[in-house]
């Protein structure tokens, strides 16, 4: 049965509620435009809200993301749809786009939920927590993470056994298993694509032993271990809960390597690894930290100074590409690498290995646009039609792009590109 679509009108549609989408939405809203932000996951904040501290200022990421997120979610000119998918966007003419959007049911009435977490306690199902990148478990009835926005419970219907335990304990009775998806037809005058990037999945590269090696984690998992809202309140290696004392970073995991399908540099991994190394030296003063790198790309404002600071703190940097990681019986890992300074093949043992995974394009935005083609570049990032003079312009007039959707970007660059996209959008709305 085809249900009637709910019709809504806004000035601008922002696709993606990460830091770039949020910044673009705020810029538009502060200039008086009505904005709809469509986010596919349960919370806005993107990847930044999951980070520990950010380079080179070592600001607590949660502390600078939450106020932005809070501003976005309260702004009278901004409406947010989380847990929502865009099915299609059609351009009918200049300043005339129609988007079909589905809001998936979260089986919890958003307005009534108080985030009391009683449903979480009652739920008997335990699955891996995707927001902690699989480090710990969560329930099938759950609050996504402690600083999520909106802070509302959701039912993971794929894993739910429909036992009804959550429904019984919910004080406002806001769990509703009969909830259906809602369909919308949204008319807007302009759109900003802020769909971000994907993280490289290291399980596709056998020699990294990401799946077999219990103590090989990704840098995003390390972010979670270091975050203020961290799962263990300290740094533990997964196999036996030991506090590690010899940690290795493997840079360019999934970057600068055609064999892994990504010839370019991911632009963020050097700096976040250096940052994590500094944080680890604070958290585990006795631990040795070694970074295996090809080149250190500390190019932004204050970045090289931050890198020098890490060196002076005692982080060991080894220029050498990692060939193979193999696990020993005690859970330690042996890294085989070519030491560039001697030209010799060497092996080193570490008790915890972090793969500094790179960025991959999110190809999704291309499929959203139906009547006109949103072109991608050779690397599958959103193509910039005028990359030098109008970096936010896409191949569709009136559709702009912000953040890492056009290529890997750190947070300051993402925010600047979001500012750029909103200026282009306002100019377009005024044309």
């Amino acid at each position, binding site marked *: 049965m085809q249900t009637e679509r709910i019709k809504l009108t806004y000035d601008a549609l922002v696709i993606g509620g990460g830091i770039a989408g949020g910044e673009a939405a705020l810029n538009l809203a502060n200039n008086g435009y009505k904005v709809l932000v469509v986010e596919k996951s349960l919370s806005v904040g993107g990847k930044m809200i999951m980070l520990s501290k950010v380079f080179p200022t070592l600001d*607590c990421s949660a502390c600078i993301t939450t106020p932005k997120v809070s501003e976005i979610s309260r702004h009278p000119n901004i409406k947010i749809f989380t847990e929502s998918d865009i099915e299609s966007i059609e351009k009918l003419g200049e300043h005339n786009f129609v988007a079909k959007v589905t809001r998936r049911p979260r089986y919890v009435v958003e307005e009534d939920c108080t985030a009391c977490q009683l449903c979480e306690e009652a739920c008997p199902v335990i699955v891996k927590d995707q927001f902690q990148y699989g480090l710990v478990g969560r329930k099938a009835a759950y609050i996504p993470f402690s600083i999520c926005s909106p802070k509302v419970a959701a039912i993971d219907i794929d894993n739910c056994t429909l036992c009804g335990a959550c429904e019984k304990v919910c004080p406002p009775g806001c769990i509703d298993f009969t909830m259906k998806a809602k369909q919308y037809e949204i008319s807007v005058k302009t759109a900003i694509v802020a769909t971000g990037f994907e993280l490289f999945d290291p399980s596709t590269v056998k020699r990294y032993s990401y799946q077999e090696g219990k103590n090989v984690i990704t840098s995003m998992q390390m972010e979670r271990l270091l975050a203020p809202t961290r799962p263990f309140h300290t740094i533990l290696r997964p196999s036996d809960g030991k506090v590690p004392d010899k940690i290795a970073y493997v840079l360019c995991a999934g970057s600068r390597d055609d064999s892994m399908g990504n010839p370019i540099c991911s*632009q963020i991994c050097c700096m976040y690894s250096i940052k994590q190394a500094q944080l680890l030296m604070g958290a585990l003063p006795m631990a040795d930290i070694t970074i295996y790198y090809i080149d250190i790309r500390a190019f932004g404002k204050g970045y090289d100074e931050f890198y020098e600071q890490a060196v002076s703190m005692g982080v060991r940097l080894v220029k050498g590409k990692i060939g193979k990681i193999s696990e020993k019986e005690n859970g330690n890992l042996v890294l085989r690498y070519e030491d560039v300074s001697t*030209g010799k093949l060497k092996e080193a043992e570490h008790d915890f290995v972090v793969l500094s995974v790179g960025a991959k394009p999110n190809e999704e935005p291309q499929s959203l646009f139906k009547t006109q083609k949103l072109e991608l570049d050779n690397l599958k990032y959103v193509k910039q039609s005028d990359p030098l003079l109008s970096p936010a312009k896409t191949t569709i007039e009136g559709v702009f792009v912000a953040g890492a959707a056009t290529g890997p970007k750190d947070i300051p660059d993402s925010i*600047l590109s979001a*500012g750029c996209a909103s200026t282009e959008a306002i100019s377009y709305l005024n*044309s």
Partner: protein
Amino acid sequence: MKKKLGVYICACGGNISDYVDIEKVREAVKDEDCLVLAKTTMFACGDTNQKDMEQDIKENDLSGIVVASCSPKLHLTTFRGVSERAGLNKYNYVHANIREQGSWAHSDNKVGATEKAINLVKAAIAKARLAESLEPIIIESKRSVAVIGAGVAGMKAAISLARMKDEVYLIEREGKVGGHLSALEKISPEGTDGRELLARLEKEIAAEPNITLLTNAEVTGTSGNIGDFKVDVTIKGSQGEMVKQFVAGSILVATGFNSYTPAEGEFGYSNIKSVITLPEFKALISEGGKADADGTMRLYYNNREVQSIAYIYCVGSRQVKGENKYCSRYCCTAAIQSSLDVREKFPNVDNFHFTRGVRTYGKQELIYKESNDKGDVYIQFPDKKPPVVSEENGKVLVKAIDILSEKSESEVVADLLVLVTGMVPDSDTALGNLLKLPKGRDKFFNEIHPKLRPVETVIDGITIAGTCQGPKNVAESVNSALSAAAKSHSFVSLGELELEPIVAYVDNDTCNWCTACSDVCPFSAVSMIDHNGKAVAQINKSTCKGCGMCLPVCPSDSIELISFTNKEMESMIDVLAQ
């Protein structure tokens, strides 16, 4: 009527609570006079807590709140927003910084950090008891922006502002616009010609009736404040100088960079003839070619053919001994692009790159790959052992230790040595001083916060764009320019602005106009007026920033700062001194 206060003590997810026992702080302050509520919270700034605070304020009819968390620089507006939404005048909220001034500063002393936090919170409570409701100062904001500097950043900002219907004054000190753009024959990644880009921008500027372009023009005076800057521009013409005055609601600074000039003898510069800088090399590629008999293009420098070129990277950047500690960001890519250009135009040229690790970040990696594939040679020298350059039979000998080949010594005899020079701040510091713009350690203009407010400066209404904030390539400059345009536009688009009412005021009865206050005021906010036949000081509310500089110098103690009155400060000191 007695105040009803609420106190919130934030754990900052461990940033505070790892060192400060916040429960102990709560216990210690909960019975303070006027307090009806004292709570701890995981993240005071979190959405849920903000909602709880709103509810608390309404339900308990609070007439003031104290938030003890991070620096007010981060969250002052957040908690003012909470107050306003709950119907509480936002100046009845007082902040205590127990993170930067507590947990972080005393992470080695948990007992002391907790004790200090208790005192800071008690002092804030004392201030909150006396805090008064205030109304913001509303001023009119002129819908015009002064853009200073007409390089690529300034030009793009001006065009965008004009298209957002703002009136724009684009001020360029040179006789023509474009900055460094016209010197860029080929811009990575697609080899775009900078001169073509410039022609496009010039055309777009000419087509915008909202842009007034002033060339040979320098800003020589500014006064006023956000919404109402009075700008004096001195224009040099054939008839001499003239001064033009106009009013702008916001100022966007895009004054660009200078290319680093090597010191005499730095890698042989100015001592050895065949040592040139990257910008000089770019000019040579476009001008120094001659075709030989069979039509092959050959490169000449000083009438000698150039067949081998050495490049030394990081000249003037990442200095081990010098002052420039920063990476200039654009030069690795720019140098490799030039080396590809020279190869393409002059097929018989060989390139030797002496680097400190190539930083072709992001998609720029592809040109590094291309350069490697085409056979360019890369040598990486250790940070602390730069190459040694000498002259040999009219050629340049470059010797370096190569960490890419077991630290062996590499020698290249080249016809030409290119010093890959970085970006340095504009040597003309007059404008920065005039506008009182702060600079970072790298001497570029400083933003308020690289992530939260990357294009704003501490001077309200003045934004920064492009390379005057730090090294950037063309696309990055444009991103920052349009970002700054968005911000400047938001200062002027609504026609009026709310200013902070925390300003100084003068007691006319006791003031004797000794000029001490006007002498120290960094914002020229003090003027003399007549009060019943007596000269007294008057403070311009919209220019005063509430910095308090005038207070301690007043011999008759005639100046008070709203929200930081003597009474309030003394009450805080009394608590801290107990």
